[in-house]
């Protein structure tokens, strides 16, 4: 243990922070995209039009039964092929793992956010939907103005907790050689043979950030009383 060199962290900090920036960016985009897409999925699952409900629940169950790592690799080679087909190009475009990861995490996260939003929508009494229709609102108006704001508010702590899980899950993209926070640490650990220092540093940073965020989620939970 005598020859540890924690200065390596200071020397490579700008590079590590670049990685962390990508991690945060991917987390935020996936959380936003996933919430929007997940809410639409939840509405589809609760739809009275059976084929739509079935398709949505099929998608959600499929995503939830697969390991994230498998999904990451699926999208990594599928996204270029899909873009090629849609655009009618002759060969698949060079998209790269950094960009395909955005699609992956939005699509994967949507399945998990969908289940949360579904629980949120179902926590609102059906009388409110009836009341909205009674005053002449359309389906989309009722959802947008009455149901979804309440569902979202009730589920905010759970959504935040799921986003902390997402923040940790993003680290798996490092296995596609992407320079996220973990990816940056892996590269330096290998280049400078400083595995102990690098991986301990990454563990500590993640712990501090996630601990602070889950504390925030807990406070939020106490503050937001469930509205019935």
């Amino acid at each position, binding site marked *: 243990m005598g020859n540890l060199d924690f200065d390596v962290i200071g020397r490579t900090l700008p590079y590590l922070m670049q990685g962390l920036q990508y991690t945060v960016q991917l987390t935020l985009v996936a959380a936003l995209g996933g919430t929007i897409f997940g809410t639409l999925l939840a509405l589809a699952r609760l739809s009275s039009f059976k084929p739509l409900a079935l398709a949505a629940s099929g998608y959600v169950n499929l995503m939830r039964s697969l*390991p994230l790592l498998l999904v990451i690799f699926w999208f990594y080679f599928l996204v270029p092929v899909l873009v090629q087909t849609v655009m009618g190009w002759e060969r698949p475009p060079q998209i790269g793992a950094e960009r395909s990861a955005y699609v992956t995490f939005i699509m994967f996260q949507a399945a998990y956010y969908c289940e949360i939003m579904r629980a949120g929508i179902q926590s609102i009494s059906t009388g409110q939907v009836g009341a909205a229709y009674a005053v002449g609102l359309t389906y989309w108006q009722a959802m947008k103005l009455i149901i979804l704001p309440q569902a979202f508010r009730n589920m905010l702590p759970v959504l935040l907790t799921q986003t902390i899980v997402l923040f940790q899950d993003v680290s798996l993209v490092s296995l596609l050689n992407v320079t996220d926070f973990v990816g940056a640490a892996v590269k330096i*650990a290998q280049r400078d043979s400083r595995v102990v220092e690098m991986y301990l540093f990454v563990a500590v940073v993640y712990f501090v950030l996630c601990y602070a965020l889950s504390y925030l989620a807990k406070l939020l939970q106490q503050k937001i009383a469930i509205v019935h």
Partner: protein
Amino acid sequence: MKLSIFLEQIPDEGIAWWQNLASGLGWTLGTAFFAWIIAFTLGSIVGVVRTTDKHWLVRIGNAYVELFRNIPLIVQFFVWYFVVPNVIPAVKAWVIAADPTEFQFATSIVCLGLFTSARIAEQVRSGIQSLSHGQRYAGYAIGLTQAQTYRYVLLPMAYRIIIPPLTSEVMNLIKNTSVAFSIGLVELFFRTREMAEMTFRYFETFAAATLIYMVIAMSANRIMALVERRVAVPGYITGGK
């Protein structure tokens, strides 16, 4: 689409590709099985400890759960695989003597076991806390010790109540085993990627893996539903019907 690829022999290996995937599945299930034993045992102990009236024990239990919940699984794998042997000489000596596969297998079991135990501890704690205080007092009133009250009154109820979340944890554990790919364990995802890279049959290979993972998830679900029905507490609302 070329499904016959699975029957083709792997160059210089003497087995077909499907056998290679099957061997990966074996490692996945084996790792998950042993990790579950660790996770369930440790998770139960930590979960119980967090419901006792000893404040310092509760503190330690909480710290344990926070530690394993707030660090990404892949980072935990790296810490067990790269950091631990470097800072503990006894482990290093064992690693040098051991076969690399053995070391990867042991690391994966320990890492996944502890990671999952923190999540089970959380479920066990909430299961015990969901019981009314009257049950605990009733246990004490008929002269049981605290340990006996847990053994005969609280835990038999709590375990049965938390079967649905435990089902999710079993499935999470099996899915999380794929992260052991990062340290080179030859589990199902490792074999899938290997096959895709060597045959260039990405679609077929990944579709096969997808199918296998779906079948695992569905079987785990059915088995746990069966268990849930078997042990259902009369008068409690249970799923799995």
